[in-house]
């Protein structure tokens, strides 16, 4: 996978670069907006990671220019500003996700996977039934079942499972869950999310094979 990182801070860039290479991605780096825009529009990348504050041309402008030119490469904005209005502004400029600095690499990695997955052309349009191993989620009937056995879910548990199933096989962080399932941006004080996950786990796993794994230091992964 080819990744373009537009980041002026050498340390952050080195930290991301090293981890990305360990994950087996090919990484190009630009340390200012102008070069970044040039690279992004001349080369072909799978994902762009753009710092919001850049010398020369700022990240938002780079992104807007690219989107204006019809470039729809998935992009994640990095920023030291994590306020809601900044987030909204970033998403409006065409970002697929938004990550506040500093972050754990696991968080960035999970989000890169997530935007890539969203960008993948799904074969059958938008599916109405999600499947992971023998776990099925019928989005129209709002029903979950495992190996044909019906699972009763609360509405929030349904959303939680839906999100996990859409990101099946990928690590999902707690912050991503809070944003996607609860729709609030805040600092959870304790392990509230973990308790919800363990409840869901009990419901979908029961006596069956484990499906929902805890990825230490990162989050969760649903995999068959």
């Amino acid at each position: 996978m080819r990744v373009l990182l537009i980041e002026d801070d050498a340390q952050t860039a080195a930290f991301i670069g090293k981890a990305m290479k360990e994950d087996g991605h090919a990484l190009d780096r630009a340390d200012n907006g102008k070069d970044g825009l040039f690279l992004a529009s001349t080369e072909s990348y799978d994902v762009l990671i753009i710092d919001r504050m850049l010398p020369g041309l700022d990240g938002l402008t780079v992104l807007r220019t690219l989107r204006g030119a019809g470039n729809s490469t998935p992009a994640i904005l990095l920023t030291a500003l994590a306020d809601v209005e900044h987030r909204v502004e970033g998403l409006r400029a065409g970002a697929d996700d938004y990550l506040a600095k500093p972050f754990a690499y696991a968080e960035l990695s999970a989000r890169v996977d997530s935007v890539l997955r969203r960008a993948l052309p799904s074969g059958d349009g938008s599916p109405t039934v999600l499947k992971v191993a023998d776990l099925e989620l019928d989005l129209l009937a709002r029903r979950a079942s495992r190996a044909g056995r019906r699972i009763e879910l609360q509405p929030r548990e349904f959303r939680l499972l839906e999100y996990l199933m859409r990101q099946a096989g990928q690590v999902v962080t707690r912050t991503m869950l809070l944003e996607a399932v609860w729709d609030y941006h805040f600092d959870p004080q304790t392990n509230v999310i973990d308790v919800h996950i363990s409840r869901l786990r009990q419901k979908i796993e029961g006596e069956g094979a484990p499906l929902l794994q805890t990825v230490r230091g990162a989050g969760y992964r649903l995999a068959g």
Partner: protein
Amino acid sequence: MRGRLHSTSVRLAAVVGLSFLLGFALLGGLVYFTVSSLLYADAREVIRVDAGGLMDLYEDGGERALAAELRQRLAQPADPDALYALRRWPTGQALVGNIATLPRPLHGRSDWRRMRQLAADNDDDADADVPSLLLRQRVGANLELITGLRLRSESGFLALAIRTIWIALVLAAVLGLLLGGLIARWVSQRLRLIEDTVARVGEGDIDRRVGSDGSGDAFDLLALRFNRMLDRIQALLSGVREATDHIAHDLRTPLTRLRTRLEMLRADAPASAAALEPAIAEVDQLLQSSQALLRLARVEAQPPASDDPLRDLAPLVRDALELYEPIAAERGIGLGAQLESAQVHGDADQLFQLLINLLDNAVKYSPPDREVMLSLVAESGGARLEVADQGSGIPLEDRERVFDRFHRLEKHRGSPGTGLGLSLVRAIVLRHRGQIRLADNHPGLRVVVWLPRTPAISTGDPAGVDS
């Protein structure tokens, strides 16, 4: 503040009005006094000349000539206002005269008297008394001559003067009050500009400045000085804020790297994984603290929430309850709720954070098998939120301090937490112009939060929250 300003302008108007009135009264009095003494001096002169002529007549012709002359004058008066009387002294027996009410006999050689006398017969209003001036003189051995004048025109003139002065006084009073009112209004308008800014700045809107009209007068100078002071305060504040921000932010970068390195170590050397686990937990704790500190700094730096959209608190509370229900159930704690729809202007994420922090505390410190009660009541002008647990509560002397950054109760020092949860709660409440109070739940703690529907300047003291 506004009331005091108001009464100051009223006082100013009154002072200006009164000074005007006093000035005019003094001027009027002076004019009246001067005019009347001039008029009296004239009258005296006339009387003295008249009396002198009569005395000469007595010197030449004796009592008989004087009496004849007087009779003659009384029969055909040249001046209808002239008064004459001749009487025996000291018995007071009247001989000739047209003075109706005679004073008592004279003691010395001569004196001046002011008396009211009946008007002359041919006068228009014959019934009225007219102020008169009389000169009494001893004539010879046993006579007393009284020569006088009715001061009819003089007194008419003086009455007119008094009337004029009264009218002038009334005019002065009205004009003074009007002028005073205008001046007071102008002054208080100028002051109000400054006062409004002070109020807004006091409420946290530090970007406000007093408008300058460029006139360079005292008010303008005050405004300029005031603005300069605000600039300085703002610079200092943002310096402190930036420093905190940078500290928190700069701490996070190395901490994040440290955490990544520890994780890599753990992955590389599974043997020492158990030993690395607590280290990672410590780093996570530090990261959480710096995150909370950053968030706190951001909330405090934001302007008041008055521009935020109006939203119902009830769904937020329900979401928070739902989020905490599993963790409470795990500890055997029941979550009870009494909610009604209550609208406030505010930031959903911040209000949710507030709820989460309060709920988290309540669930953390509630004993198992007890209930945590949450209630939301719509009140006039706002919403009242209460979170009550049945834990050990907070001693009275600690109730203010628990809002301080990093302050933790002695007995909770060992438990997880940043010591910033309630600081953040208070920062959010203040940004929404609300109030927060910690009360006794007998047993346990009851947190009472009052949020105004519209976070505006000076919300006053809402009923019930008297922290």
